[in-house]
């Protein structure tokens, strides 16, 4: 799947490149006019662009805003139109490979249906039940909507499509439960009969429900529910295949596909339902798969029939928003909105189950089946563990006993739990659940503590209803999934409390809601969400501040059922991630157009590195993919010791270059034609891009006036806001913001303090704040071979919500890996979704408060983050404290609302709500610890500390975090054996991750690390989403020379092998093998000296080890099964990734191997502990 996502763009690239080449030929002859001597005024035709544009823009805007008011049209388009096109649209089918058709029959109610009815699938489940572990996991999954299921789903769907090896069965653990109670879970199995294909896997809940009822009992074909199946299931089918299909369409059909291209192809659910009737249920769709499943289950056909009742959506507008608008609306500039819908054409995507895990998880299930004997399972919160069989037999003496106990009790309580009302969510915890994550482990004796597959995040211990609607852990994650009741309790646990957010990530499905009234709490302004409680029909109680609010009339109408008086079934209340189309109340100025300015270093150093060629080519290729509409504007500024502007006014025969040499007091030579409409001036832009690399090839200018160039960019962008992309290749040496080299190379490997991690000047910070105020985001690309003081330069992006990219020792010829990385990064960067003039507010339940923020943005007031630009690849983190006791509540909620202007000029609000239980026992706090989130938050805190205090302080603090936490656990546990280093199962990876953190470039000492690389690594920690950070901290290591089909995933028509994760130690490497290490932004393929000849021949394409070149950066496409399998695996790893990692083949004897070995964090290095030593160290510290 993944490859396609990427492959496609590439094909596009090719096309472009050809054309661009042609252009290039032509353009070469048309050099820009050069030279300071030009008289500006004379040369320009009075460009009308600027003067006319803004005024024009405003009026239109009003016109535009009108439509929303006319509810009907808008809603109609958004819901039905978009929705259908994208998700369920025809494109799905055509695109889908033949195999998919198997799945589709559903809609027609063909073979598949019968099979369902026959309950053939059931037989298999029965078999599974026999196995102890499977059931518990069900119990779990049952309740867990998003994460677990999705993860399973994709697998299943893929199975369906491909080979029916792994049938998916839905388990009815909760017979009596309401529709909500239904659980979906999928089971995979080997050697299952083809029936599996039929199984509409975890399809809709409806199907599950039916199963559940039938469960235990014989599978009666005649199940009541089944009469409806064709209808109700259809959605599922789509949903399932969706994963695959959508993927295709995005690529094929949708130019905007980039938005989603990065997104995990798998969708949780069928949110795209295509009802046979063909009428879209408007807002209904918006609800993610689960709900739909639910809704459908209940309503059966009804739903299908309900069409987009556009009308309801309108209704009285209320104005509550006004006040907030100021706060939330960002700035003030101009422009109109276009009619075309969101950048997200598919307004209808629902929550995703979680992209990454989806992919990762399925495999986990597989091994389960295979190795029943080892199939112990943690019944509780760690889905990852649940799914995984014991990694290795030796690893778990302790596990043995667990199966039965964990399993039995678990399956029982569940049905009843389902019946608990959501209000009791927090109380529904089953003690047994916690037992498993609390199971004490002696870390000193556990040799293999890694789960064999990537672990998915712990599930909050909520009632199934709440779990189902809770926010995806990919978007919103809390370090403690059980929130301690008081600060005292939190202090006792010695764990940090915080949230990790990835609010703007690419979603495959997202409900988009257009309505005049966005329902919010009157006092705290919280958006209505699934966790509010309805006191009665007309009143709801805010879950953050507990104020009772009225339900507005408009909200009473439920477009899903076209019925009145069911406010609790509205999509806002059924989904924890929704997007609203905001009215003009949320604007301080008309939504701005997409404006892109590129600021390019053209000094000698820059020309020498050759990045201009790469950049110009990439931009030419992606010019049409820049997100935007007809108002999109683009401009270029280049600089060396002077600043050059380019007049690209439509009608000119060639671009004109205007040179400003007064860098002390930069001015803009002409206001009109420097930022031009991309559509109108496309030819000129292309000419310029073709000519640019050649224009400066003879330059002798070595100075760099970055500061003045940035000031010029600021002045240029001031009126509109937008995105500035800065390419810099050396230390700025002229004008404002000049920097001195601060690095002493001799101290690179010092074990003492590392200096100069903080910026040298406040120039860049001030500039960034100015930019932020004018809604300008600055992205920095640093391609430099020497020290460039990234610590200072990065400030310009940090506080203007930009991103930082760093390519050390970039050279377009001598460093192919970096060149390829730049190309791929640019490909993604230029085409990814973007939100302008954004603000994000994070609200939490009364009693909790945020005290520290991490990420790239400016904190404008206590809970308001100002994001000039927001991009789908940046993550944020916040630390929280508990100010008042939460004793009187059982649930804590967090809501992140991101208000932004889409590249199409629409004001939108994306709202995520997370709900977690509040607990009063220390043991429960430990049981709910999410170790990955904790690690990321600690990393952020450590980086702050190393900048504000010193690196050694930060490192000590990290070690102390482990020591304190484990001491707290020991002090708490009464029945724990005194010897050894005891940790609860939930925290068993804590020491390992902290050790890995200490060995990161950002925080390590004693190893030669360039200052810029260290600072860049810090920037990454602060701005990357969790998954990316975790891969950086603790890369995944696989042995890939002996991958077998055993346990493989079958996706489409390819087979994706699933080798187990290996511990990061050289002990796991053998000379006979080839190992793949996935570090997120880099992948290493380490080939051992005695590696299997067949592998080298069939996969690497060389006759033997000796002939392997030492710098390979990709795996050739060979037509052997071996090669196909390997490539399938690698592309499967990549598919949910937005940025393509650099790929290095490392030979055992190559000097480059040190870069590979430095990631083996469990091993000892000259200056750092091995894992075992670290454990001893921790133990020693604890006994002090």
């Amino acid at each position, binding site marked *: 799947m993944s490859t396609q996502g990427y492959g496609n763009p590439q094909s596009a690239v090719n096309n472009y490149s050809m054309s661009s080449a042609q252009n290039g030929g032509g353009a070469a002859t048309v050099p820009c006019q050069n030279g300071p001597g030009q008289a500006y005024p004379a040369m320009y035709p009075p460009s009308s662009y600027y003067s006319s544009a803004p005024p024009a823009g405003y009026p239109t805007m009003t016109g535009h805003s009108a439509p929303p008011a006319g509810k009907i049209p808008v809603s109609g388009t958004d819901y039905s139109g978009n929705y259908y096109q994208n998700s369920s649209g025809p494109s799905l089918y055509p695109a889908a490979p033949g195999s998919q058709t198997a799945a589709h029959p559903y809609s027609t109610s063909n073979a598949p249906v019968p099979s369902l009815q026959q309950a053939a699938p059931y037989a298999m489940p029965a078999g599974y039940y026999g196995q102890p572990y499977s059931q518990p996991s069900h119990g779990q999954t049952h309740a867990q909507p998003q994460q677990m299921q999705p993860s399973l789903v994709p697998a299943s769907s893929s199975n369906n499509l491909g080979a029916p090896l792994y049938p998916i069965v839905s388990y009815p653990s909760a017979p009596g439960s309401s529709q909500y109670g239904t659980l979906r879970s999928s089971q995979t199995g080997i050697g299952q009969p083809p029936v599996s294909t039929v199984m509409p896997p975890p399809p809709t809940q409806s199907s599950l429900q039916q199963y559940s009822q039938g469960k235990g009992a014989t599978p009666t074909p005649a199940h009541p529910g089944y009469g409806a199946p064709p209808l109700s299931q259809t959605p599922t089918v789509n949903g399932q295949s969706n994963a695959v299909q959508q993927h295709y369409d995005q690529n094929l059909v949708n130019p905007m596909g980039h938005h989603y291209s990065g997104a995990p192809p798998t969708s949780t659910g069928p949110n795209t339902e295509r009802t046979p009737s063909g009428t879209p249920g408007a807002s209904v769709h918006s609800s993610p798969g689960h709900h739909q499943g639910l809704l459908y289950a209940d309503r059966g056909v009804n739903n299908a029939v309900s069409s987009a009742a556009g009308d309801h959506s309108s209704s009285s507008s209320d104005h509550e928003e006004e006040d907030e608008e100021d*706060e939330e609306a960002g700035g003030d500039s101009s422009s109109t909105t276009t009619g075309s819908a969101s950048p997200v054409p598919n307004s209808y995507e629902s929550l995703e189950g979680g992209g990454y895990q989806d992919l990762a998880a399925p495999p986990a299930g597989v091994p389960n089946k295979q190795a029943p004997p080892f199939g112990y399972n943690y019944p509780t919160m760690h889905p990852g563990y649940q799914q995984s069989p014991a990694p290795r037999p030796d690893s778990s003496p302790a596990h043995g006993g667990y199966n039965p106990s964990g399993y039995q009790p678990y399956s029982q309580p569940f049905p009843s739990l389902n019946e608990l009302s959501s209000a009791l969510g927090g109380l529904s915890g089953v003690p047994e659940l916690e037992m498993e994550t609390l199971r004490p482990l002696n870390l000193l004796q556990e040799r293999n503590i890694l789960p064999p597959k990537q672990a998915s995040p712990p599930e909050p211990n909520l009632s199934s209803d709440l779990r189902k609607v809770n926010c995806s852990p990919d978007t919103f994650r809390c370090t403690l999934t059980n929130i301690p009741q008081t600060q005292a309790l939190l202090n006792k646990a010695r764990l940090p409390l915080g949230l990790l957010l990835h609010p703007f990530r690419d979603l495959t499905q997202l409900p988009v809601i257009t309505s005049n009234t966005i329902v919010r709490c009157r006092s705290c302004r919280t958006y209505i969400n699934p966790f509010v409680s309805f006191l009665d029909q007309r009143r709801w109680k805010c879950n953050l501040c507990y104020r009772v609010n009225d339900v507005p009339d408009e909200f009473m109408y439920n477009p899903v059922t076209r019925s009145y008086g069911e406010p609790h079934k509205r999509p806002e209340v059924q989904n924890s991630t929704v997007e609203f189309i905001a009215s003009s109340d949320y604007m301080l100025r008309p939504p701005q157009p997409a404006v892109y300015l590129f600021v390019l270093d053209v000094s000698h150093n820059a020309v020498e590195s050759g990045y201009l060629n790469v950049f110009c080519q990439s931009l030419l290729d992606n010019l049409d993919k820049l997100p935007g509409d007809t108002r999109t504007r683009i401009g270029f500024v280049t600089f060396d010791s002077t600043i050059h502007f380019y007049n690209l006014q439509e009608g000119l025969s060639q671009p004109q270059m205007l040179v400003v040499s007064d860098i002390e007091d930069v001015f803009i030579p002409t206001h009109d034609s420097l930022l031009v409409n991309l559509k109108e001036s496309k030819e000129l832009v292309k000419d310029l891009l073709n000519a640019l690399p050649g224009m400066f090839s003879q330059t002798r200018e070595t100075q760099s006036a970055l500061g003045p160039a940035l000031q010029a960019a600021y002045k240029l962008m001031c009126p509109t806001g937008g995105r500035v992309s800065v390419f810099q290749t050396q230390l700025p040496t002229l004008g404002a913001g000049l920097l001195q080299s601060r690095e002493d190379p001799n101290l690179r490997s010092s074990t003492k303090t590392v200096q100069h991690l*903080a*910026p*040298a*000047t*406040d120039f860049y*910070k*001030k500039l960034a*704040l100015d930019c932020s*105020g004018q809604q300008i985001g600055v992205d920095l690309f640093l391609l430099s071979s020497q020290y460039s003081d990234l*610590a*200072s330069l990065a*400030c310009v992006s940090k*506080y203007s919500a930009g991103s930082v990219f760093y390519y050390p020792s970039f050279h377009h010829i001598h460093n192919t890996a970096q060149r390829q990385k730049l190309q791929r990064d640019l490909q993604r960067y230029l085409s990814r979704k973007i939100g302008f003039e954004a603000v994000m507010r994070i609200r939490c339940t009364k009693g909790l408060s945020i*005290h*520290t*923020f991490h990420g790239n943005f*400016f*904190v*404008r*007031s*206590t809970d*308001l983050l100002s994001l000039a630009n927001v991009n789908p690849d940046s993550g944020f983190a916040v630390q929280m404290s508990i100010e008042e006791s939460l004793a009187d509540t059982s649930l804590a909620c967090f809501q992140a609302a991101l208000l932004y202007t889409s590249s199409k000029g629409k004001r939108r609000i994306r709202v995520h709500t997370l709900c977690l239980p509040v607990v009063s026992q220390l043991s429960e706090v430990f049981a709910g610890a999410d170790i990955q989130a904790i690690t990321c938050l600690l990393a952020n805190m450590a980086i*702050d500390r190393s900048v*504000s205090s010193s690196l050694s302080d930060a490192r000590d603090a990290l070690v102390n975090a482990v020591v304190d936490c484990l001491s707290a656990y020991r002090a708490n546990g009464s029945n724990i054996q005194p010897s050894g280093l005891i940790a609860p199962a939930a925290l068993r990876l804590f020491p390992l991750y902290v050790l890995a953190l200490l060995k990161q470039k950002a925080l390590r000492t004693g190893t030669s690390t360039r200052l810029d690389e260290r600072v860049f690594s810090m920037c990454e920690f602060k701005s990357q989403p969790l998954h990316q950070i975790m891969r950086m901290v603790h890369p995944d290591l696989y042995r890939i020379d002996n991958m077998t089909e055993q346990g493989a995933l079958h996706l489409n028509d390819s087979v994706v092998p699933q080798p187990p994760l290996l511990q990061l130690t050289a002990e796991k490497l053998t000379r006979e093998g080839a190992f793949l290490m996935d570090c997120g932004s880099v992948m290493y393929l380490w080939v051992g000296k005695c590696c299997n000849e067949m592998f080298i021949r069939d996969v690497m394409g060389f006759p033997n080890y000796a002939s392997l070149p030492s710098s390979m950066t990709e795996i050739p496409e060979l037509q052997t099964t071996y090669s196909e399998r390997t490539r399938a695996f690698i592309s499967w790893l990549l598919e949910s990734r937005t940025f393509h990692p650099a790929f290095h083949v490392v030979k055992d004897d190559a000097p480059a191997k040190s870069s590979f070995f430095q990631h083996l964090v469990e091993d000892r290095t000259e200056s750092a502990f091995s894992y075992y030593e670290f454990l001893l160290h921790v133990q020693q510290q604890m006994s002090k």
Partner: protein
Amino acid sequence: MEAAVFILSLVDCCALIFLSVYFIITLSDLECDYINARACCSKLNKWVIPELIAQALPTVLMLVSMHWFVLLLNLPVAAWNIYRFVKVPMGNMGVYDPTEIHNRGQLKTHMKEAMIKLGFHLLCFFIYLYSMILALIND
């Protein structure tokens, strides 16, 4: 002469009291979202140096006029002001940095500091007043 020293200190102290109140008001405005971090910090940073000087002035006066007790009272505060000013990292925009003021409870720390200073200045105010009256009587 002695009376003049205390009168001067008294006036200075009044100014400092007003300044502390201003700091408290501005910070609490920020806490309540009435102004944004940038505006708040640029307002406050303007007054950091005046405050520093105003605090150093009585300290020097006491040193010159050899009032050791009052000197000892003032010295730590003056030293703290100077320390805080000198310790501002190069990349920051002053003692109050808009990008950090919402982090790590800095806002609360600043608030606490302003409160303590207010208390201190009030104490000083009465000491100066008392000393001034004493000096005037003695004269």
